[in-house]
């Protein structure tokens, strides 16, 4: 049994146009020591997946399917039990460290808070542990920084503090939602390397959410590509990049500016735009934007087709896609 098992997860949100499915049957598993990435564009459901795992969905959201964490079903757990898990067994890192931290409290106190809450530590021992954690996330002059306020730190240091809070109780699962998107590239590299090192040392499972193909290529072992609330392709990261089996994965890859393209090269684009949740078609969610669409694509959601070891794509037209060489 894996640490985290998500099975046919369906989340229905209340929108201005009535109830709409934000997730339409998402399944995956993640074990301790493994790294898994969720990639996709705005509205694909990657952040909703993270919120569902943490029990932080907006009011009025309905959840079907199952999320099992260490054998325990989370979808039916009440709020107080979820609170005990969050910050203790499940650590979280969000995109914007300035909003994740309380501007009115010194960072040492914010790190100590979860230790006092979840581990029942006294003030002094929680502070000592907070110092150890700040050192572990490589904040320079950690002892002085304990009493610093968030605005006195740089963006990269703030994100290190957020990581220290996430790690405070020694979680089994770390969920990082766009943890480096607000940071400069050189800082991004350092923070990602730090997260990977900590995951390796502690044997946590890492669920990384990002829109950045390059970040994923460098960071995770397994990759799920999401579109329209479904996982359209999943597999070992290297295999997904090699094969680009789903037309959407291929479109994303081709649209990305790469170093070394000649000046003025036109980027490939994906025609049309992401349908609104309420307009999501009954069949393949990508059908309206796909060059290879046939009537059967619109009839029913496509099944997962195996394209390699542990590598699936939800497309019934895979065999007509030429090999990836022509896509590059």
């Amino acid at each position: 049994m894996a640490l985290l098992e998500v099975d046919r997860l369906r989340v229905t949100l209340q929108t201005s146009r009535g109830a709409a499915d934000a997730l339409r049957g998402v399944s995956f598993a993640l074990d301790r020591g493994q790294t898994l990435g969720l990639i996709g564009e705005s509205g694909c459901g990657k952040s909703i997946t993270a919120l569902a795992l943490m029990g932080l969905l907006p009011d009025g959201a309905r959840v079907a399917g199952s999320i099992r964490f260490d054998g325990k079903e989370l979808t039916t757990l009440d709020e107080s039990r979820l609170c005990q898990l969050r910050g203790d067994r499940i650590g979280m890192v969000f995109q914007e460290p300035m909003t994740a931290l309380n501007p009115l409290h010194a960072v040492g106190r914010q790190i100590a808070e979860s230790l006092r809450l979840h581990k029942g530590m006294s003030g002094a021992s929680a502070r000592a542990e907070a110092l150890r954690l700040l050192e572990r996330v490589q904040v320079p002059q950690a002892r002085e920084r304990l009493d610093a306020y968030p605005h006195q730190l740089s963006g990269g240091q703030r994100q290190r503090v957020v990581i220290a809070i996430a790690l405070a109780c020694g979680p089994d699962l770390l969920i990082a939602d766009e943890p480096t998107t607000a940071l400069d590239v050189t800082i991004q590299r350092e923070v990602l390397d730090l997260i990977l090192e900590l995951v390796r040392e502690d044997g946590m499972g890492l669920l990384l959410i990002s829109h950045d193909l390059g970040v994923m290529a460098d960071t995770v072992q397994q990759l799920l590509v999401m579109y329209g609330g479904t996982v359209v392709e999943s597999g070992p990261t290297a295999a997904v990049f090699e094969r680009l089996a789903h037309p959407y994965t291929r479109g994303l890859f081709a649209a990305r500016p790469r170093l070394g393209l000649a000046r003025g090269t036109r980027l490939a684009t994906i025609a049309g735009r992401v349908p609104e949740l309420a307009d999501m078609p009954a069949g393949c969610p990508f059908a309206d934007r796909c060059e290879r669409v046939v009537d059967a694509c619109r009839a029913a959601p496509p099944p997962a087709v195996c394209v390699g070891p542990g590598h699936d794509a939800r497309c019934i037209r895979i065999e007509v896609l030429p090999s990836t060489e022509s896509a590059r």
Partner: protein
Amino acid sequence: MNAPLLRVENLAKRYRLPRQRLLAPAPEVQALAGVSFTLQPGKSLGVVGESGSGKSTLARLVMALEAPSAGRVLLDGQDLHRLDAAALRRARSQLQMVFQDPYGSLDPRRTVLQTVAEPLAVLHGAGKAERRERAIEALDAVGLREADLVKVPHEFSGGQRQRIAIARALITRPKLIVADEPVSALDVSVQAQVLNLMQDLQDRWGVTYLFISHDLAVVDLVCDEVIVLQHGSIVEQGRPDELFRRPQHPYTQRLLAAVPGMKARQPA
């Protein structure tokens, strides 16, 4: 070689920081420390660097939104920071800006017509009929329709909003567009559409771009020349294909090494 459209000479900007103590002198930060370059008409100059490198300060000084501590900004030979109010207003019709966040840069309560035609109303005092006609022309240039004129921003996607922002910049038929991170808030597939559009506009209208971005791949794609800023100074300058293939300065090398996905695809 033609006369440059934009000439920036020894441009510097110091900001005063809040006092740490009541009687101590206020500390200062040198945001821009003597930057010089020229930009030919119809070309694109990329400005790369990290937070605090001075990129956005440079944009604000070129747009004459702030006065420099030293140095000059010459547009078509005119020193923007020495013009009187009326002359600056006339010169401003040649200068437009596109910002990073298409959600924050459009007024949610104003229609597309009001938003796009605003620079005309401010700069030229154009009549209603002319404003509408020019707005349709600008929307057409960015691939939007006349029917969109009466809509408000929330009816559009992020990419479409950025098109509206570009249409607003185009309506005065400016010579220079300063684009400060124009695609960084957009999804990958939308980013590709906006980058293609910006290049089309340059091909068709000869627009000149000062293109500020932290994304080296984007700058490589759309710029004829790049300057690398660090701590307010240019540390390296050149054509992107050469500069990114053989970076000389350690800071440029560090920036390049940090580009995600380079590890996997290094020997290209």
